[in-house]
């Protein structure tokens, strides 16, 4: 094994030797520098092999041939090796990336870069406090040197501010070191740690405090970190990458960790508080940033804060500590370096300027990988790490820490994904796009980071105590579409449909009846909707990976056995659907809203599972039934709110209308007809296992009942007043999900059957209606219903689909909607909740109002001039609709096909209040329902009336459109004869007060407050280096008062 000292020796030696080459041979110097960095990386890498076999072993290397305390020793263990490798790799890649700048400034800049990397390695390896000081000073000097690589003139000021801060840091560090030496007689960290109990008394404690605060300052804690932000904003992005990944992420953090050996238990809470504060505050302030590099700086500070907070938990994390801290640290380092490198390709510095990346699918993939990594989304290491962390925190009741971590994560995801929205949706300025500098060596650096990111994702999956998410077949299937994205749409579509159907039949034997219904909807139902996608031409880049990711999540959700699998699947389907929704032309804000709500819901689910598990790994979903009082109702509450976010219960519904309405034609039915069911599935799992729960004497299912009724009522009411056909359908979904929620919350077998009936029905008719309306919108070029009219003759098949659809939704005989209602009324009679029941009853007729509009305003009335030559919707959009029509009719005749088995399956849970399924007739305690006779009766009546109509109309005379006169006037324009806009004005007068956008306003105000707060707090960073110094002193004093002084 090569002595790790050579890492230092090679770095320092080459730095000096480069001087011999001079600036005339700077190309050679550059090659030498790269060679030296490669050699250093190779040494670190060779150690990695040893320590992966035995993670606990470590090797001490003595300088001057003596053991400490008489000489400095360096130590190499698994942590040091990984961090050193990280530092060197970030240095090497950045060196490649900064080729132009380094060659321009000559060999000196290369020497300084080597010194920087060497110093960071030294900080990580050394076990001597004074040596630590020396390496830190070297890093400071090198930083000040490397800042000059930037084209930004302001970097000079940033460098000076850093020098001021480092003066203070070195003072504190030196004073701390000398008094610590005085107290312990050694400079060795481990030596001090051994004497820690005695040392932390008297003057020794102050000495430790000084050293600790000095080192901690290098980790850039809020609020003493303005200087760091200025560096991040103005430095060369290549350097910022090294600074964020190497200096902040690896070296400073590990130095703090070393000092904690001395500080021990007593100092863990301090690190926790400072870390959490930095994490939440930095991510909050980042909300109002518009400069890309400064945003990344804030994010960097936040991530380091999170790592510090994790360090503060090492007393409970035990053997998981390295897995968790490492997962977060490496995710941060790789992602942040990658993002900084991407920022170097872009000329302008506003977040919105990143839209120039839009034409570059590979770079977009890189960006997504990086922000997914930072946000802790699966399958990246930070996901596994956060999961374990949250589980551990909940098991020891450190709930407020858990809460802050999730809050910070949510804030971070919000601005990162908002940024992603900018990339895909904001205008591209032509000249900027031409200035995108896509030098191949820069791209290679970025894609190496991407490969490392996914490699780490795989590694963490292997290391975790759960299944590797990257090896789940549905996920692999979804990811494989990334590689197939160059193929034309129809091939990919065929592959997707084939894959989903095939997977269903492979997995078929493993489903229980309940799961089977969901699996049919998710997989087969998804395949039917995908038929409509054949309509799309070209390559449709990005659609299939996103859609398949969503379906993979849904598939895994049904199969999930433990909480981890469930949550991972939940995250997958959330991300996939977010990407899908974002594809809509105007969906940028709506997709973001959807993601924020979904992630917030997901975090509630995560906390619920964590609270329920109490450290049990793995926690099977059935174990939810064994959760003890008094935490059971809290678990129930968290999970229920999480799931209800997905079903868009009233109050948490504001993301739905925009997201569903603005999505593409074939995406709307996917996210409405299919995705909403994921929330219901979760609720079913929850209720089935936890049953009724009481919190402070309040029956939680009773609240859900009310929420369901209110959602049904208000959702329908809001749908009535929509002009946009897709928005109308979207609001109607809120109402429909309300019915289903109501049914589940009744907590009797009939209620559940009704909910399932709604699950199936809603999938069929909502998918169908969204497709019909989407097809109409495609042809007419508008979604405003009042601009349509009289399309019945032009688009007869769409008309039939909508007609059948609204009959089914409204719940009148003979279609399956009636079956739903019938079970529903039985369910209500079997329970005692009369008041919410009234609301549900009222929502029925309200639904009729908006359904009527769909048929009246779009298909009946007067044909508009501009639509006279319109054609039927495209074949591929009509085809699934016709399949749905058939399915609705079939399901209306034989509902037992699906429900009978589920009824039997539910029997044990509700002690036999089920239905009797005798042949074609279904009997309950209150009556019976025979679908076939009903169908026959209706068909006979319909046929009779139709015949009669034909008979009396046999002599009717055909008239032209304007062969009418009213009010003594003859109309010339169709608009004047077709009353369509603000159709329900009288109802609006009567009931409009009920649908004032209170909820929207509430959330808007909330968001405004956050932004205002962030905007006020960030003014704290005045930009004056002297102020920063005062802030640092004040920070140190405040910490002293809190920790030591009281």
């Amino acid at each position, binding site marked *: 094994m090569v002595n790790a000292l050579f890492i230092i020796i090679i770095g320092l030696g080459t730095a000096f030797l480069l001087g011999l080459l001079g600036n005339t041979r700077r190309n050679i110097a550059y090659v030498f520098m790269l060679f030296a960095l490669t050699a250093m990386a190779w040494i670190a890498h060779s150690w990695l092999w040893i320590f992966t076999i035995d993670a606990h072993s470590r090797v001490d290397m003595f300088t001057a041939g003596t053991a400490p305390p008489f000489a400095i020793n360096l130590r190499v263990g698994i942590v040091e090796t990984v961090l050193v490798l990280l530092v060197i790799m970030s240095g090497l890649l950045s060196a490649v990336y900064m080729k132009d700048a380094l060659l321009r400034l000559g060999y000196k800049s290369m020497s300084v870069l080597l010194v920087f990397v060497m110093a960071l390695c030294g900080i990580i390896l050394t076990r001597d406090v004074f040596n630590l000081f020396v390496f830190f000073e070297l890093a400071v000097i090198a930083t000040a040197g490397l800042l000059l690589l930037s084209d930004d*003139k302001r970097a000079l000021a940033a460098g*000076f501010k850093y020098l001021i801060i480092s003066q203070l840091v070195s003072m504190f560090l030196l004073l701390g070191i000398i008094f610590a030496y005085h107290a312990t007689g050694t400079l060795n960290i481990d030596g001090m740690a051994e004497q820690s109990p005695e040392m932390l008394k008297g003057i020794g404690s102050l000495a430790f405090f000084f050293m600790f605060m000095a080192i901690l300052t290098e980790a850039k804690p809020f609020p003493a970190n303005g200087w760091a932000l200025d560096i991040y904003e103005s430095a060369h992005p290549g350097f910022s990458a090294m600074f964020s990944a190497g200096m902040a992420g690896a070296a400073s953090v590990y130095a703090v960790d070393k000092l904690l050996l001395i500080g021990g238990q007593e100092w863990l809470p301090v690190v926790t508080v400072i870390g959490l504060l930095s994490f939440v505050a930095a991510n909050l302030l980042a909300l109002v940033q518009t400069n890309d590099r400064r945003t990344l700086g804030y994010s960097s500070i936040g991530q380091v804060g999170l790592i510090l907070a994790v360090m503060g938990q090492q007393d409970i994390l035990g053997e998981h500590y390295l897995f968790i801290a490492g997962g977060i640290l490496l995710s941060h380092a790789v992602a942040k370096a990658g993002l900084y490198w991407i920022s170097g390709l872009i000329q302008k510095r506003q977040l919105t300027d990143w839209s120039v990346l839009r034409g570059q699918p590979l770079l977009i993939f890189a960006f997504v990988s990086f922000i997914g990594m930072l946000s802790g989304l699966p399958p990246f290491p930070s996901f596994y790490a956060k999961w374990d962390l949250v589980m551990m925190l909940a098991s020891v009741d450190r709930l407020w820490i858990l809460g802050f971590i999730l809050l910070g994560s949510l804030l971070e995801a919000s601005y990162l994904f908002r940024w992603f929205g900018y990339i895909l949706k904001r205008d591209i300025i032509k000249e900027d796009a031409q200035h995108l500098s896509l030098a191949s060596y820069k791209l290679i650096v970025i894609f190496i980071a991407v490969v490392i990111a996914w490699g780490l994702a795989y590694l963490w999956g292997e290391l975790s105590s759960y299944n590797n998410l990257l090896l789940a077949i549905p996920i692999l299937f979804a990811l494989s579409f990334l590689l197939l994205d160059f193929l034309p749409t129809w091939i990919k579509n065929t592959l997707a449909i084939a894959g989903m159907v095939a997977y269903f039949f492979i997995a078929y034997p493993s489903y229980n009846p309940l799961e089977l219904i969901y699996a049919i909807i998710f997989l087969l139902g998804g395949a039917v909707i995908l038929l409509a996608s054949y309509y799309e031409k070209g390559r449709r880049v990005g659609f299939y990976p996103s859609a398949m990711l969503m379906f993979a999540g849904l598939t895994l959700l049904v199969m999930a056995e433990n909480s981890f699998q469930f949550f991972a699947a939940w995250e997958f389907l959330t991300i996939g659907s977010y990407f899908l929704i974002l594809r809509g032309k105007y969906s940028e804000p709506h997709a973001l809203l959807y993601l924020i709500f979904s992630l917030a819901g997901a975090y509630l689910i995560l906390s619920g599972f964590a609270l329920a598990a109490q450290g049990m790994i793995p926690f099977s979903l059935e174990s939810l039934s064994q959760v003890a009082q008094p935490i059971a109702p809290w678990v129930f509450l968290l999970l229920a709110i999480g799931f209800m976010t997905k079903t868009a219960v009233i109050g948490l519904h504001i993301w739905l209308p925009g997201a569903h309405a603005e999505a593409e034609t074939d995406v709307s039915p996917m996210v409405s007809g299919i995705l909403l069911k994921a929330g219901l599935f979760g609720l079913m799992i929850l209720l089935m296992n936890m049953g009724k729960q009481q919190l402070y004497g309040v029956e939680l299912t009773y609240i859900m009942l009310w929420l369901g009724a209110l959602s049904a009522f208000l959702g329908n009411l809001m749908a009535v007043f929509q002009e946009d056909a897709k928005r109308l359908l979207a609001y109607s979904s809120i109402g429909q999900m309300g019915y289903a929620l109501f049914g589940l919350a009744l907590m009797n077998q009939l209620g559940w059957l009704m909910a399932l009936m709604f699950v199936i029905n809603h999938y069929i008719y909502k998918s169908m209606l969204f497709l019909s309306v989407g097809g109409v919108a495609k042809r007419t070029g508008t979604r405003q219903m009042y601009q349509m009219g009289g399309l019945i003759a032009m688009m007869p098949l769409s008309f039939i689909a909508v007609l059948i659809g609204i009959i089914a939704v409204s719940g009148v005989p003979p279609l399956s909607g009636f079956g739903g209602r019938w079970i529903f009324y039985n369910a209500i009679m079997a329970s005692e909740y009369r008041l919410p029941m009234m609301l549900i009853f009222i929502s029925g007729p309200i639904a009729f109002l908006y359904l009527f509009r769909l048929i009246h305003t779009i298909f009946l009335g007067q044909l508009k001039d501009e639509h006279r030559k319109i054609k039927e919707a495209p074949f591929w959009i009509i085809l699934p609709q016709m399949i749905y029509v058939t399915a609705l009719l079939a399901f209306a005749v034989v509902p037992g096909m699906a429900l009978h088995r589920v009824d039997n399956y539910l029997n044990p849970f509700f002690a036999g209040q089920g239905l009797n399924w005798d042949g074609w007739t279904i009997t309950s305690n209150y009556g019976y329902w025979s679908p076939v006779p009903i169908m026959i009766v209706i068909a006979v009546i319909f046929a009779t009336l139709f015949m009669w109509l034909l008979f009396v109309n046999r002599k009717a005379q055909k008239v032209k459109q304007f062969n009418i006169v009213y009010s003594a006037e003859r109309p010339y324009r169709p608009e004047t004869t077709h009353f369509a806009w603000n159709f329900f004005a009288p109802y609006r007068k009567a009931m409009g007060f009920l649908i004032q956008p209170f909820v929207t306003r509430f959330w808007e105000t909330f968001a405004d407050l956050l932004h205002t707060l962030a905007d006020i707090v*960030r003014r704290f960073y005045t930009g004056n280096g002297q102020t920063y110094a005062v802030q640092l002193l004040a920070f140190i004093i405040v910490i002293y008062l809190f920790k030591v002084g009281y």
Partner: protein
Amino acid sequence: MVIIAMVTGFILILMGLYGALTNTNILRMIVSFSVANTGVNIVLVSVGYMHGRTAPILDNAVPLAEASTRIIDPVPQALVLTAIVIGLGITTLMLAYAYKLYETKGTLDISKFSELKW
């Protein structure tokens, strides 16, 4: 003696800090930091000083056998030497930066260099 040195050191540190935080002129700040650094170095030396002993140089005057009882602890001295060297490096760098900063704006007022903020 030790006390006097230490008190002097701390007074210098506080004076230096005060100067660095109240003067807006960059050069004055650098000088103030130098003063503070000197204070730190004096404190370092004074902590390591042991009364009545001689400098830690092994030559004819101090035989090896008696060294451990007759010389003062060499470690703080070594630390001070290193700290002085590093302090010099940082001060030089700050002066170079001051020069460059002056070139860009024609002023040495630290508050004028605050375009990077928030």
